[in-house]
């Protein structure tokens, strides 16, 4: 251990629980902002969440200066530019992202243009290319999965070139993340399951990948436990506000974990499946996680075995011989996938999605090798091995 070394960073203030939204006027005021632009999508606006937010903020003396509710499902550079224009036209001084991964990532990218007063977003793409702090950004997740509310990354689709453009900088981290159970109560069952399995995957990968460390392990294990304990209950009782809040916290904890220890092959493959087949990210994660854990098993037996405790509880863990725990962990994740499928029909295999053609697997495998996540996977992955994992998940 004399050579051990890691870095851990998470400056995002978490505001969590009942009536958390009511704290936003105070938080923005403390940041010197009074004219926020709300960034969201049609689904969230249609569900009445913007109205709820507007009402709560107004009661706290804060008027929303403008709303942009046309963020597309995979984000887009066009939306980012439109938001920055709206920000300038309405003389805004802060952003509030309200939604899932797409509105959050889009708002982060729009904040670059709003703060740097430019139209050229691509000059800031890649890692570490932002020169200074951005305008205040408060994030209100309406799904419990991406963890984007606590990460330093934004991924935006360049619709002209057909590629996803990553931005990574500590300045992209939001000033505050507000987890209020009112914001996730109406989430449909399948999205609830897919996003929760996204959080589960963030946690599992951060627990086994190369940059794992004691701090990220603590967050990851807590996130695994929360998803394992609450997901099926929330699918059975969608109005369970405590369960919903537990999943939102799990997503944030998993986000803190993976933004400090990174993710591996599940995400490398999942990003490629998403880019080529337009499959929901959380669904990709849920499908691929057990197959990748099996692939990494020899290199990470101990860590995968340790996951059994938060995943299945103390009784199962104690009843399982140490040597069998890694396989039991993977079996438990497969069981969880089956239970989720029985409750809401979330696909368990790539073929069940109906969106991935078997002929595309080779292209997906090749593309995954260039994904930034792959370097943190504990095992060096060849194209043939990536393809074998995809076939197992097929």
């Amino acid at each position, binding site marked *: 251990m004399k050579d051990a070394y890691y870095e851990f960073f998470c400056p995002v203030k978490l505001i969590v629980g009942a009536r958390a939204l009511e704290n936003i006027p105070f938080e923005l005021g403390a940041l010197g902002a009074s004219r926020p632009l709300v960034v969201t999508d049609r689904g969230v606006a249609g569900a009445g969440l913007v109205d709820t937010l507007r009402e709560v903020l107004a009661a706290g003396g804060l008027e929303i200066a403008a709303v942009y509710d046309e963020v597309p499902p995979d984000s887009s550079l066009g939306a980012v530019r439109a938001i920055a224009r709206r920000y300038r036209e309405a003389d805004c001084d802060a952003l509030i992202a309200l939604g899932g991964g797409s509105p959050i990532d889009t708002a982060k990218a729009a904040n670059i243009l709003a703060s740097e007063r430019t139209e050229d977003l691509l000059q800031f793409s890649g890692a570490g290319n932002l020169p200074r702090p951005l305008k205040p950004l408060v994030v209100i997740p309406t799904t419990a999965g991406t963890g984007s509310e606590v990460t330093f990354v934004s991924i935006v689709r360049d619709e002209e070139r057909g590629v996803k453009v990553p931005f990574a900088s500590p300045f992209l981290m939001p000033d505050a993340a507000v987890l209020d159970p009112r914001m996730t109560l109406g989430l449909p069952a399948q999205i609830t399951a897919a996003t929760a399995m996204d959080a589960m995957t963030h946690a599992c990968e951060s627990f086994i990948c190369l*940059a794992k460390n004691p701090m990220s392990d603590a967050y990851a294990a807590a996130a695994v436990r929360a998803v394992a304990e609450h997901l099926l209950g929330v699918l059975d009782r969608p109005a369970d506000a405590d369960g919903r809040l537990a999943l939102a916290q799990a997503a944030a904890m998993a986000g803190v974990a993976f933004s400090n220890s990174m993710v591996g092959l599940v995400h490398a493959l999942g990003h490629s499946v998403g880019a080529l087949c337009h499959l929901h990210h959380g669904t990709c994660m849920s499908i691929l996680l057990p197959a990748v854990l099996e692939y990494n098993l020899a290199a990470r037996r101990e860590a995968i075995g340790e996951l059994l405790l938060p995943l299945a509880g103390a009784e199962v863990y104690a009843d399982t011989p140490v040597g069998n725990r890694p396989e039991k962990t993977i079996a438990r994740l497969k069981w969880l996938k089956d239970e989720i499928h029985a409750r809401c029909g979330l696909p368990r295999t790539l073929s069940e999605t109906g969106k991935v053609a078997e002929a595309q697997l080779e292209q997906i495998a090749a593309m995954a090798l260039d994904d930034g996540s792959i*370097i943190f996977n504990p095992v*060096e992955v060849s194209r043939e091995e990536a393809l074998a994992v995809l076939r197992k998940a097929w």
Partner: protein
Amino acid sequence: MNRLRQGLKRLYVALMMRIVGWSLRAMSRVDPVVRAEAAGFPDGLVIAMTTMPSGPSMVLEKTPAGTLRYLGGRLPERTGLAIRFKHLDYAFRVLGFVESTPTAFARARMVVDGDLAAGIRLVRCMYRLEALLMPRFIARRGMKRYPEDLGLAEKLGLNLKIYGRIALDLVTRS
């Protein structure tokens, strides 16, 4: 003594940066694996590897012909991909095979600016360089997995080609 040690480290890193630059240039011409990887970089991409705050450095450029051109040790104003070691000691540990490249990434020993996919491709080129040019017991310390299918005869044959090409490039200054 400490200053002497730091000076020697700087000298070693500068030498290794140059060797990496020369080798990748040569391998992009004579090794099928690096040739295929290099072809995947965008044309004109300028790749820099440097040590903060002021070098040593090495700079490569992807040519339209699909090969890599060594541009020397001076950093240009703009790069498409820059891998910057945060400290001379970190660069020394990676280039001295004390710490593997993926471990260095995991420990955030360097900052990667620009095209991340190209960065992953460059890491694969580095693995290949280590596997071909270093003895197996040293190369294994720099990567996650030494290529088991790389036989001694193939390795020696490619070594000859690579060193020959490096010599030719140096003579012809190409």
